[in-house]
């Protein structure tokens, strides 16, 4: 990828984050009616409403509000929770590892299952293809939180193989960590694996129909080598793309998966904050997830050139 393109992509990402930060910083203003009294609650006294107004910075001109919020946010200061009075960044730091563990593990599961099944379906076609196809449609349609509940029902309650609830930090007890995140990660990853399987299958079928595969075969290239050198590289692009597009779905899905498995993660924090209208927490949460999504998609863009050199020259 040329450096000019790199700069353009980077610029685009920064712009999107900047625009998102405006939406996020000023979301309090979108509350119908008087924001401060809505946030302070129905039974708040005028003094409480006034103090809420000041804490939210609503008494300042709008551009001052944005500027001070944004400069604080850049320094990692998202203010304090309106409910617990704790610094928001501290709350985030506490719950982030659980959410990241599950999301990452889910991605790994999705890639392993999706690429294996999709690759087999694309190479073998026939029955394997039809079964995978049906499974993928079903996997996409099944809500991940329902999958989570079914996993709990079968593996935790019926057979007692995994703990039902809660989370153990990796640093404290690696085995316990793995034990605790297996079911949530599986619940979250299965739906995504269906999507990855579809993409892989489509990519492999496309590649196998290319003349260079026939040429390589004619030259007598052994099957394994053919697959590793030609098929994987060329079929990887749509798969990587779908991974980037799915990260947003994962970060949304993990909210509910955390509820199902009673894990105190980012999603649990967000749901509580939404119910309490704890705006500083919600703002930090929305901006953080957006930055993660934008960063992952930038990486996906950059990976194209690395996976497949032809992309570089095409651009």
């Amino acid at each position, binding site marked *: 990828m040329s450096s000019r393109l790199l700069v353009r992509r980077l610029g685009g990402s920064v712009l999107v984050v900047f625009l998102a930060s405006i939406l996020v910083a000023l979301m309090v203003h979108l509350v*119908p009616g008087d924001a401060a009294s809505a946030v302070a609650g129905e039974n708040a006294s005028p003094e409480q409403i006034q103090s809420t107004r000041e804490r939210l910075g609503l008494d300042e001109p709008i551009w001052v509000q944005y500027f001070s919020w944004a400069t604080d946010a850049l320094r990692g200061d998202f203010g304090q929770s309106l409910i617990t009075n704790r610094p928001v960044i501290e709350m985030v730091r506490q719950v982030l590892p659980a959410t990241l563990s599950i999301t990452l593990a889910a991605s790994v599961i999705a890639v392993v299952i999706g690429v294996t099944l999709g690759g087999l379906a694309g190479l073998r076609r026939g029955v394997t293809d039809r079964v995978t196809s*049906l499974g993928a449609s079903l996997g996409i349609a099944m809500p991940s939180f329902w999958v989570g509940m079914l996993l709990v029902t079968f593996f935790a309650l019926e057979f007692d193989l995994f703990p039902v609830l809660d989370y153990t930090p990796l640093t404290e007890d690696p085995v316990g960590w793995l034990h605790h995140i297996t079911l949530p990660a599986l619940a979250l990853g299965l739906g995504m694996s269906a999507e990855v399987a579809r993409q892989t299958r489509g990519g492999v079928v496309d590649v196998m129909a290319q003349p260079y595969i026939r040429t390589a075969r004619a030259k007598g290239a052994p099957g394994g080598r053919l697959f590793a050198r030609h098929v994987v590289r060329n079929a990887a692009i749509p798969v990587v793309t779908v991974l980037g597009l799915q990260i947003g779905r994962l970060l*949304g*899905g993990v909210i*509910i998966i955390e509820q199902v498995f009673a894990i105190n993660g980012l999603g649990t924090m967000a749901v509580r904050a939404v119910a309490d209208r704890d705006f500083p927490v919600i703002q930090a949460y929305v901006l953080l997830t957006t930055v993660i*999504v934008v960063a992952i998609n930038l990486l996906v863009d950059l990976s194209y050139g690395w996976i497949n050199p032809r992309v570089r020259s095409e651009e």
Partner: protein
Amino acid sequence: MSLEASPSGGPAVVDVVGDEATTPGGGPDEFVPLRTHRSVFRRLLGNRAAVVSGAFLILLALAALFAPLIAPHDPNKQDLLNVLQGPSGDALLGTDNKGRDVLSRIIHAGRVALMAPLLAVSVGVVLGVPAGLFAGTTRGRIDRILGRLADTILSIPPLVMALAIVAILGPGLTNAMLAIGIVYSPRLFRVTRGATMSVSEELYVDASRSVGCSTPRLLWAHVLPNISGPLLVQISLMMGFSLLAEASLSFLGLGIQIPDASWGSMLRDAYQDKFKAPYAVVPPGLAMTLTILSFNTLGDALRDVITARRRE
């Protein structure tokens, strides 16, 4: 069925609609207008998966419409002496934590399952389609600004965005559906804009413009009918996603409020009693999965029919 739906590896999800989403060789320009090919419907009837999905959705709609006649019991009638019962002759799917008949509740909640996504998609259409038509025909600066705004909203995960909007508007089913409609509007905007741009280059558009056809009339009479194919595909897929989003928000307690029930809130109730009645989570989840599957299959089949037609 569905895997074959995207022969070029095209993503079949609503999440990935956009410039990059309509896949290599499968851009909106590959679609053809629905109106000029009345055989589209006949072809859809030839697709077994589409027929089964369509039939299921029609049955569901009828069941929802006539819920009070079909449901064997009052969905909200509590019977505290018979809570969390397994299936029996009287209650085919058992009873819930307040002794209410699960089957009756599922049938009644079918109304929410269809109406809520319909509301969300309507909001998305109202916001996204006119903006897309406008951006696609005028191009220029407004197009770029709208495009940037769409990019920004698209980079916020849908459920996260929906949570933020519910925080702003307050919880409740209508607000939740408004939120989901807003979240999906950029996707409809992009599909509409892309399709409008390719249609605008057609000769008949130039021709009507040259005979003095006004822009609104041009959009209404020529452009809109000709982009209805990709829009319908998108809407069908979006119905499934909206149902999922509604269930998610209701499961979190931010969507439907008691005493009404949706499949999502039923799952939440059932799951709370997982130690006492572990299999109670099966019926609402199954209803949801089958409905989402039907919407997705129908959308995929429609896309196949339209694109296959183009290839000929």
